[in-house]
Structure formats: structure tokens, C-alpha cells
């Protein structure tokens, strides 16, 4: 499996979880390296993705300056987890606001580690 397929497969794993709506790998400048979505998605989800894309640079700066590995935002009906993959990429997981964040953060951390092996 090449690295692109590998990354996409890890993102698909995340969106296969019941409560996850989307998983994206962002570069810190806001460019999307790869992404995966549930088959049916709403406008509200798209707006949340737009917000992620517009703010990923600020979030990553904040994470770097605070030496943070993970930050969580609650936006409208969604919960967004940013996880550091390496110096230039962040894994972003968007889940429903009722998701079990403890379980989800375990899997996000694992996926961030597996994705970093592909980069």
C-alpha cells in the first residue's frame, strides 16, 4: 500500500465509526492532504469543515506555542478534534456532539500515529 492509499484508508477507518462524520488531514496552511466523509452529509457539516479549513493555521499556531497535542472544539452540532500528526500536518476528526469523546480520542491518537508513519 502506498502512502496516499494508506492515509486514505486510515481516514476511512475513522469515518466508519458510527459517530464520526468526517476525517481530514490538513496541512497547517489550510490545504487538505486527504479527506473522508460519511456518504450522506449536511450543509451544517460542510460549514463546520469550512470553519476548520479557515482556522487550521491559527489552531496549529496555538497548538505549537502551547505545546498541545490535541484540542477539541464544540461547534453547532459537531465536535471537532485536532490531533498533531507531525510538524506540518494535523488530523481533524468531526463527530456528532453526542460522541463518546474519550473513545474517539483514543482512536484519533492511534490514527495520527499510523498516518505519521506514512508521511
Amino acid at each position: 500500500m502506498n502512502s496516499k492509499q494508506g492515509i486514505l484508508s486510515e481516514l476511512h477507518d475513522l469515518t466508519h465509526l458510527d459517530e464520526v462524520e468526517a476525517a481530514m488531514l490538513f496541512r497547517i496552511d489550510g490545504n487538505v492532504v486527504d479527506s473522508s466523509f460519511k456518504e450522506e452529509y449536511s450543509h451544517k457539516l460542510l460549514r463546520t469543515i469550512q470553519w476548520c479549513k479557515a482556522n487550521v493555521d491559527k489552531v496549529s499556531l496555538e497548538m505549537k506555542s502551547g505545546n498541545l497535542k490535541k484540542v477539541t472544539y464544540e461547534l453547532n452540532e459537531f465536535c471537532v478534534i485536532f490531533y498533531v500528526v507531525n510538524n506540518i500536518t494535523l488530523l481533524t476528526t468531526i463527530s456528532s456532539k453526542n460522541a463518546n469523546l474519550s473513545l474517539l480520542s483514543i482512536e484519533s491518537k492511534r490514527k495520527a500515529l499510523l498516518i505519521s508513519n506514512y508521511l
Partner: protein
Amino acid sequence: MQIATTGTTSHRSIHAATKQIINDVIGDINGTPDFMIVAYTPNYREKEEYEKAIAKICEESGTQNIIGGTFPAVATSNDIPTTQGCSLMAFKSSELSFQPPVSYSNVRLNPIKGAEKLVKLFKEDKKKNKTGFFLTPGPNFPPDAFNDMKMLDSIFAHKFRGMFNLVGKLINRNMGKNGYGVTSFAYKILKKLLENGVSNTLGGATIDLDMLSCYQFQGENVFQNAMVGTTFSSDKLDFGHSWTFDKSQRSKTFEISKGLKSSSYVHTINNKPAQEEFLNIIDIPKDLYEEAFKGVAYASLLYLSTLMSEDQGNLPFVSVCHPILEGVISTIPEEILDESNRIAEFCTQSGIGVQKSAYQCAKAASQGINNPAFGLFINCSNRLLIAGDKTEEENKMIEEALGADVPFMTLYSGGEFSIINHKPIYAAVSVHGLVAGYGHSPQKNVVF
């Protein structure tokens, strides 16, 4: 020589995860494993999927000596935890023996019969050192469960407690038959094992935190309400057991005043209506509590307390509140409640406390063992939720206690059970461990 090898894989497809784990673990062992413990996460849902996966592992490994189940997360010493995959621990050694695994379905209704199967294994095993390992179904509260329990609040149940204990028993039995209820039946298994001279064993309950389905595996069989188990024995290896929980932060005490014996249902706390007083003690306003839980049929408030038992010391248990019910469901077997002074104490769990207690458990279990060969840990899924993505740190603490390169597996359970030096331990929100290894070598003790 390595006795056990472990691995963890994750994938959205159970077949891909299984293929990978076979490659990683079974491929690593030279020949056919003697025995395997396999743990899947419950997100694959369908029983048929698990059946196919287990059949594939049996076929590829060449052995039917497998037990396992589904747990919200699984982890091994050489990989970080996953909530979407599987872990496998494969054993191969001339120094370690396993009895062919047994199973007993409907163990919720007849735990004694299940225990008898384990007793038989212990009796057949003639090795010097032995211990047991078994898995059971865990607590399961589907949406209707709380509604079904409403009659436990009736005036009849309050006024005619003695008579209603029988009705409570029937409700409990019915809940058990439907596959839900607490896991107090496991205490009966421990008691039966003790009566038959079993001195050490480790057990845990499978669980799905979404309360949809949990499975137990034995050979190629996949069960929903069964006990599966085996025994480990050896003339050379020693087995160490321990258990603990985060005892660092204790707060208010309360009295479990009145309850229905057979259903683990508490009517009054501090001689006041149980739910009302419970919320009062933990300082949660009723309107806030109802807003948080009323809309969701299966959600409930879960809190850890301990009860002083004469036989077993401070035992942690979980109390469950639900807006539909006026009482509180507590995971204390009636036998333990009867022998206690009924004074419970709240225990607040912290991430650091969870990590430290995991270290303490592993350290205590490996005491007297010079050279640990492998470890097996049953860790509460509530502790998993407390630790979140720091769960990995907890396993690092276990590694620190056992030593690098000692393979171990951690299963995040819905109830933890042990017999340690002839004492039964039935607990919640705790970690129980088994460490096998070489003790002081005979040569060292020879005096010339």
C-alpha cells in the same frame, strides 16, 4: 525463550483487522500456538462477522484453543490501544499448559453450572502451580431496561419488601434471560470456585459501551450470554495476582439504608428516597440532572463508591441513576451487601490515579517473580473513559512495572473479578492483573 507474543491491529473491516493480526502474531510464533486470547472491539456488531473472524483465526493458527470476547478497547504491550480492531495473545511453551477451553451459555441464569465447568478443569489439572481465566457477559441496559424496572418503585415493593424480594428476583431473572442486568452472577462463580479449593483466578466481563451487543468466544463458537474459561498451569512458572483501584480521592460517605436484596436495587440512601439523596450528596441539582439524562432512554448517571466488606476490604462498586427510576441500581452482589456495614464512600477517579493504580497492580502481581514471562490485565472500561487518549500511558506504567519486552494484554471490561489467595474480589472501576514468570530459581536457594 518467549512464551507469548502479542499484537494489536485496527481497521474498519473485521476481515482486514483479522488478516493483519494473523500475519503479525501467528506468523511470529514458530508453529501452532498452544492457546490464544483474542479480543475484538464491539463496533463490528454482527455475530456472523465475529464468527467468520474467529473461524479464520482457528483455521490459520491450527488450534481451537481460543477464548476471548468483545471489549470497548483492546491493547497489548507492543502497540497502542484501539477502539476499532483486535488484539491477540498467542502462547507456545513446553513449560506452560492450558486446559481445553470450556463454555457455558446462559450463565446469567445459572452461574453455578458455568462455575462447575471451570471447577472440573481445575481438578483435572495436576500441575504444581495453576490459575484460571474466564470471561462473562457484562452489564447491558438497552432502552427498555429502565422502564422494565419501574415496578421496583411501586408502593407494593416499598411496603412489602420481604414479599417483593421474590418479585424482584423474577424481574432480575427475566432481565437476565433477555440478556441485560448487572454482573452480580459472576460473584456466584467466584464463590463456587472458592468452595472447591480454587486459590487464584482472573476474570472479566465483556461489554459494549453503546449497550448494543457483547460477545464471548470459545474455539469457533461466538456466544452472547456465556461464560468462557480455561486454566493455566505449570511446574516451572509461578502465577502472581493482584488488583487495585484509584483510592486517592475519597469524599462523602452515605448509608445504603434499604434495598431489594435480589435485584441490586436501592430504595433509600441515608433513609431518604435513593435517587434524590444520591443527587443531593454529589451536589447535582435535579433540574440539571434531568436535562442531561431525561431525553436519552439509555443514558444514566454512573458514580463510583466503595463499600467496606469484612471479607474483602474496601470494594468499589458503581451506582446507576436514571430519571425514570426513584431508586438507584448498585452493582453490589447481595452477599457482599449483607456482610458489610452498609456504609459506602464516594471515590473520585483521576487520570493520574488511574495510571498509578495500573502500575501498583502490575508491580504487586509480579512480586516474587524474578523474570516475568507475560501479563494479562482486566481493566475497567470506566477507567478507559477517564484515561481517554492517555490510556497508552497507563499501559506504559504496566510496562515499567513488568519490564521492557514482557508481553501483556489489557482488556477493558464491564466488571473485574479475581480470586487472590483464596479471597474473592468482585469489583468495579478497578484493574486486576495476572503475571506469570519464573520465580527464584532453585539453584539460587541451594546452600553448599
